């Protein structure tokens, strides 16, 4: 390409296309990732909060990350940020390469840090302070290359190392490594001065750990682990981008004396390098759990639950099925919220009792927000609050911030608990939310309910009323007669439908019947939900004596007979389950007979 102007247009166009491609990819494949991570931190417009953030290793990067992340609840902002950050890294890297080796013709070098970090951007354990620190560090490398006098280089490298360590954390090591390699090739006899910024970073890291107690472990001080969720160890591939930058500087210095080459050769080289980049990108997609469809589906369902889009959640569950019990639990929350659990549970995938009462005895915080949604839907304020509290504690530990979704839940549950203590705690959380941009209006609205200034909403009143029923549900295993004391409301219906469904999924018809026989006909269960009617027919067939009359429509009874007859006639057919699924897959009979 002889005309530099056209070449410039092509290069600019290339980066623009790349930006658009990344943005579109993120929007199509990972748009739900961004609101998912947004919920686990809140940016507060508060002096003490800001100074606390800045007084950390990588404080500037963390502050920028949290400021930007708050906008991820707005569509497209997350993908735009990721595309801009990655292209920004590429452009600065290109500038570095061009500065060191003007005729390098090496787009591979500029694209490598982009390719190596593309998938990391949707790893929910990765913290965006990492990419921000990366940008700051490569910008510092580019700035450093402007200096030519030895004294200036010594002062600049030392000052930049110190500033970088504060602003961007261990990314400063990448900066020093890159300039050290560069200096070793440019002026080997004078390169020893780069030991000074190295020593500064080593000292700064040690002070941060040993004297300022800002970091708990050496790995956080001197490796990119700082940009990953504490308590976890990132995958090896996570480090490649950080190692890549010094290597890029090394290759650029090797290419610095390269002369002009022919246009044809130039394009051939570019094509070859782009092929390598494509290979690297495909390699980064391998074996990443966070890229699996089941994870993206989880994030999508999580979004629907958070924003109470129950129909969307059910549509997704219906169309794509559920891959695991967590998906089923989320689908069942939507069914509970639409008061359709008892009627339609088996119209959706069910894999057993874990899909309705997930075991959380290991205190894994990953599922706590979902559990809080479940128990809030059931009117179990106590558990909804407990797991919300634990999830928020996780955000405090991991992000040194609050979980907006769980903090809202804590406001509601504490208002529901009421009393001076409940209102005081709710007010504490409201005051925090009021310092955020996106939650302050909601928080201020809740102030009206504090200290009984305004009557509670019907939802809140029912939740308060239902605490009694939750207590009964805890005690009924010893004596089902406590159910005669139910305080009837819409939530009592949900509570005991959920209990019944738990027994049905566990194929425990005896305990299921114990509840139904006591609540059927009351305001808690005025009519029999469809699946309960189906279950009662099985219970009757198993020669159990049923007392009382249950209104089961004739169609269901007739269909049950047909089901029995068909199953009896085709008992030896190996494909019986598949054959019957078509006609009876949405019934409890099918679940009871064929689910292991």
């Amino acid at each position: 390409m002889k005309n530099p102007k056209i070449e410039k247009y092509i290069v600019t166009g290339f980066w623009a296309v790349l930006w658009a491609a990344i943005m579109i990819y993120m929007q199509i494949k990972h748009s739900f990732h961004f609101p998912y991570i947004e919920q686990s931190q809140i940016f507060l417009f508060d002096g003490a909060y800001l100074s606390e953030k800045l007084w950390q290793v990588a404080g500037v990067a963390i502050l920028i990350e949290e400021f930007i992340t708050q906008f991820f609840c707005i569509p497209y902002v997350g993908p735009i940020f990721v595309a801009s950050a990655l292209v920004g890294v590429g452009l600065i890297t290109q500038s570095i390469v061009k500065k060191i080796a003007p005729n390098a013709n090496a787009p591979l070098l500029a694209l490598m840090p982009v390719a190596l970090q593309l998938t990391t951007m949707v790893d929910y354990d990765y913290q965006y302070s990492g990419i921000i620190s990366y940008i700051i560090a490569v910008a510092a490398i580019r700035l450093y290359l402007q200096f030519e006098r030895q004294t200036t280089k010594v002062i600049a490298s030392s000052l930049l190392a110190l500033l970088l360590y504060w602003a961007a954390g261990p990314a400063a090591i990448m900066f020093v490594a890159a300039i050290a390699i560069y200096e070793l090739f440019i002026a080997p006899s004078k390169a020893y001065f780069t030991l000074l910024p190295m020593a500064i970073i080593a000292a700064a890291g040690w002070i941060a750990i040993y004297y300022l107690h800002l970091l708990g472990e050496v790995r956080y001080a001197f490796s990119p682990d700082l940009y990953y969720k504490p308590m976890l160890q990132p995958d090896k591939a996570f480090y490649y981008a950080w190692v890549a930058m010094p290597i890029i500087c090394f290759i650029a210095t090797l290419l610095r004396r390269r002369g002009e080459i022919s246009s044809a050769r130039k394009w051939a080289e570019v094509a070859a390098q782009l092929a390598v980049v494509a290979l690297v990108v495909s390699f980064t997609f391998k074996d990443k759990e966070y890229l699996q469809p089941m994870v993206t589906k989880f994030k999508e369902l999580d979004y629907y639950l958070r924003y109470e889009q129950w129909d969307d959640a059910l549509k997704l569950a219906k169309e794509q099925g559920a891959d695991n019990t967590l998906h089923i639990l989320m689908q069942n929350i939507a069914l509970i919220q639409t008061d359709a659990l008892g009627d339609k549970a088996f119209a959706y995938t069910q894999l057993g009792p874990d899909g309705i009462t997930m075991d959380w005895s290991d205190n894994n915080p990953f599922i706590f927000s979902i559990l809080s949604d479940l128990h809030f839907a059931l009117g179990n304020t106590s558990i909804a609050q407990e797991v919300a509290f634990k999830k928020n504690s996780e955000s405090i530990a991991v992000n040194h911030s609050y979980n907006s979704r769980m903090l809202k839940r804590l406001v509601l549950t504490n208002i529901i608990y009421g009393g001076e203590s409940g209102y005081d705690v709710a007010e504490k959380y409201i005051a925090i939310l009021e310092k955020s941009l996106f939650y302050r209006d909601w928080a201020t609205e809740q102030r009206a309910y504090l200290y009984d200034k305004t009557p509670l909403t019907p939802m809140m009143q029912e939740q308060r009323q239902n605490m009694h029923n939750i207590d009964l549900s805890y005690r009924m295993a010893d004596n089902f007669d406590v159910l005669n004391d139910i305080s009837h409301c819409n939530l009592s219906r949900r509570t005991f439908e959920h209990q019944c469904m738990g027994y049905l999924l566990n194929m425990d018809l005896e305990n299921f019947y114990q509840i139904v026989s006591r609540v059927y006909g009351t305001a808690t269960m005025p009519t029999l939900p469809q699946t309960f009617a189906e279950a009662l027919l099985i219970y009757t067939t198993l020669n159990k004596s049923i007392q009382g009359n249950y209104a089961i429509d004739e169609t269901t009874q007739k269909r049950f007979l047909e089901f029995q007859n068909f199953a009896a006639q085709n008992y030896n057919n190996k494909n019986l389950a598949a054959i019957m699924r078509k006609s009876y897959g949405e019934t409890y009979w099918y679940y009871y007979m064929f689910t292991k």
Partner: protein
Amino acid sequence: MRKLFIISTALVALAAMLCGCTYNEQEGRMSDKPLAIFPDYADVTIPANIAPLNFRIEGSNAKAQARFVSGESSVVVSSSDSRIIIAERKWRKIVDAATAGDGTIEVIVSAKEADGWVTYKPFTINVAPHPIDSHIAYRLIEPGYESWCEMGIYQRNIETFEQKPIIENSAADYGCINCHSFCQQNPDKMLFHMRQMHTGTIITDGTKIEKLNTTTPETRSPLVYPSWHPSGKYVAFTNNLTRLINLPNDHNRVEVYDGASDVVVYDVERHEIITSRNLFSTKYFETFPTFSPDGGKLYFCTADSVAMPDEFKSAKYSLCAIDFDEETRRFGERVDTLYNAHTGGRSVSFPRVSPDGRYMLYALADYGNFSIWHRDADLKMIDLTTGNEVDMTAANSDAAESYHSWSSNSRWILFNSRRVNGLYTHAYIAYVDEQGKVHKPFLLPQRDPDFYDRFMKSYNIPEFITGEVELNSYDIAQFAKEDKGIDLKFKMQE
């Protein structure tokens, strides 16, 4: 020269402006409304060596001013947002004046309201003649619910606002860290437990650190609730099975109970656990041991063994004592009862004797032993010289008061209370004068009066220490991670 003149003039003008901001005392009409401040420092009694009692005017975000007057001395603090943050130098000046004078500081607060400045009725801060230990130690953890993410044991210089970690779980793979305890407020002689990760009890003596594996075939779990013998040669512990249950329809929300518990004593030199049948029985739940200051008695709480969790409300703990001979390591055969739960009807936890041996301080709740979750839990105190109960009304509130400790001079008590919002536990300090009168407590002061609004952790197990723990938290964590620990032996007294 002209430049210099202009700069000097500007500097003088700036200084005058600054002085004007600080010392231009605002007075206006007297307010007929009572002054509400947070923390409530009105009429509290403080030691002379405490950090400044910064506070804010509740329900206001306007300009404010506070004048602190003691005798002839006075200082003025101005604020643009209702937070009265007193400079250390000014605070020392006024506290010193009070110490030299009648021991009182009058605080006159003015605030700018819509119709101009108003001045509130003054309140008093009393300065006690007795100093307080310079440091306290506490664990910071999210309140309750048996889970955690990030926690640590910290030391706070209460003469300033400086807080340093003794150990943080972020340096030790995020396990649980709990039950810190000091031998007679000595920062050099300390212990704490680590659970889940790098399990063991870390015990320090100066720069020497040991890690103990406190589970033995004869005990049911690692040891908890330590209390040092004054000689430093023994530590009493509880050996228990603790569980937590949710109470969905109860104002206490959560109940923590022991399914079983016994008391044992660890011999620091021989690495041996010793106990007696009176402390280690299946018929009773024995817990919360604490030695008398002379080391001759071991106090503990005990309740009839009941079926848990079904009967958790009927577990009521009495306060008892048994003799202990440090030379022979033998326990007495007779058990004395100081508070009888059968007749008193309530339940004792956390007994602590003042270092001068005069007072027994404990928490009393309706039932159980984990009083921090009981709104009905209050502090109680017995004068051991007379057996009479000391009036603790000034220290207690409607919310839970629980864990407590004594200063080394027996004049100050440090305790937990949930009175601010019913959930988060905060540290309060109260003065106990020579006549045994307990004065109104004050909340642990912070540099920013809004600190407690945004702080999401509880102050757990606040303990006085006479100075700073010198061991570096990183070194302690590294030791805990690398050391395998010493296995303990168990011996039952014949």
